[in-house]
């Protein structure tokens, strides 16, 4: 290895790492600083436009929204509305998702049950589940139980379908390996099939969570109750007609905050529980 070079190296530095390039590179690598900067800029423009040019009376600026949200939280009204909504959400989501996951896993393992449930599920799946509300309301009125049943029905489908598909797509050779090792049916199910089906099942649960929020809001908006029982959704529509715009915006902000927080918490929890497994599988 001597005299390698024929020519004198004429080093032409094409890309010098300038300071600005490095900074933008840092932001692009992480992504969230760019998104945060974008979001903050948008909010600032909104605020600026509102306080200089002015907005219609029904559109509040971010600062006004924050102030009214703080006031309504202090007075307890927002908390009561939110807890009425969350109560429905939690019950509906829990019942629907638990049923869905359980039946999905079972029908994934048992061909017979799978075939039996497959028909009714594919028959009811295309129906927009919100239409169940007026049907159930025929018997139960626009009550909490009616709303909870509808939320549960909406959550059932993604939970069931994903759990079912997850169990079905578990690598058969994994099961054979377990059987070969002398594992019984129950042990194979608990230690091989369920863990392998977990990522996709969890993705289904996350879809159900997003649907639960949509249906929480929708069931409250339709045939809404009065007072704090209306929940955030009902209250927003009431506030629109009465012109209490600060309540409307504060409730909207609360819905957004709750949706974002619950989803983030869910993902954080899942991240803690499923180390090494792919959570994003369901986010295609």
């Amino acid at each position, binding site marked *: 290895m001597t005299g390698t070079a024929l020519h004198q190296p004429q080093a032409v530095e094409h890309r010098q790492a300038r300071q600005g390039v490095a900074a933008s590179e840092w*932001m*692009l690598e992480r*992504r969230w600083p760019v*998104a*945060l900067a*974008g*979001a903050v800029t948008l909010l600032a423009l909104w605020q600026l436009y509102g306080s200089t040019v002015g907005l219609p009376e*029904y*559109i509040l600026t971010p600062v006004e929204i924050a102030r009214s949200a703080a006031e309504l939280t202090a007075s307890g009204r927002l908390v009561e509305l939110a807890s009425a909504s969350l109560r429905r959400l939690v019950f509906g989501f829990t019942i629907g998702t638990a049923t869905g996951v359980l039946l999905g896993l079972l029908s994934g393992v048992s*061909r017979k049950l799978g*075939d*039996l449930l*497959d*028909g*009714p599920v*594919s028959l*009811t799946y*295309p*129906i*927009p589940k*919100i*239409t*169940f509300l*007026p*049907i159930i*309301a*025929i*018997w139960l009125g626009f009550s909490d139980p009616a709303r909870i049943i509808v939320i549960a029905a909406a959550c059932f*489908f*993604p939970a069931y*379908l994903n759990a*079912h*598909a997850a169990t*079905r797509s578990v690598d058969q050779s994994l099961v054979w390996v377990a059987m070969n090792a002398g594992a019984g049916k129950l042990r194979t199910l608990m230690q091989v099939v369920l863990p392998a089906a977990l990522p996709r099942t969890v*993705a289904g649960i996350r*879809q159900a*969570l*997003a649907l639960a*929020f949509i249906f*929480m*809001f*929708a069931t409250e*908006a*339709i045939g809404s109750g009065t007072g704090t029982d209306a929940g*955030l959704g009902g209250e927003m*529509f009431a506030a*629109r007609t009465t012109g209490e*715009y600060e309540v*409307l915006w504060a*409730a*909207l902000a609360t*819905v*957004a905050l709750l*949706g*974002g927080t*619950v*989803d983030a918490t869910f993902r954080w929890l899942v991240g803690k529980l499923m180390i090494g497994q792919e959570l994003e599988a*369901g*986010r*295609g």
Partner: protein
Amino acid sequence: MANPTATATAAIRNASPGPSLRRLLGIALLLAVWELVANTSGTRLTPTLREIGTRIAFDLETGMLWFHGRLTLMLAFSGLLIAVVIGCATGLLMARSRWAEAMMQPLLGATYPIPRLALYPILILLFGLGAAPKVTLVVLECLYPMALGTYVGARSVTKDQLWLARNVGAGWLRTLRDVTLPAALPAMLTGLRAAAPIMLIVIVVTEMIGENRGLGYMLMLARANFEPDGVLAVVAVLGVLGFLFDRLIALLSKLLVFWERGVRM
């Protein structure tokens, strides 16, 4: 944001094709239970299947179903169409530009769990009651699966494919048309398949909330008039529509993404 419809059909396809009898049995069982309840209760609260069928025929005859259904579908498809255009553009931009990607991807991820439906009252204040807020809401909801589908699809274009296009001397428009879009098509159709049921939900919900036209209104009207058969007739029609949309998009995928069949043989 996986695709529940695709999941549904995947699940259906995964199920063994042999004992379809058992699957029919499941449907028959469901309907039989309904019939039993309907016949024994004897009240109008639970109409029999026959009564529901008669009601659908009646609503068709009076033109009610056509009148309201047409309005619903028109708004739904306008919204979907706009969402497809904006969503594809956004997805392509995200796939092409790192800045757009860094900006949009976390934003879409963070706003995904927030129900856009909550914006409806504000959209009504902005646009007034009527078509505009509904279509806007459909756009807002369907944008997510479309943008993400296109983004994922456009990102599946390999570096080799893009370099090949540069080697051949294809300009950006040619590359978009002949390389990026075909490569993104399967994922875009998956996005569309996820968007279709969302479109139906959103439009029906908005029609159920204080409105005087559309299938959602028809539903609420029948309820207010205490006509359970009328309610169930609309529900059945919506179910059929949802099913048809899904089949239609599945068929479209099969025709357009013909090349994937060969690979999966």
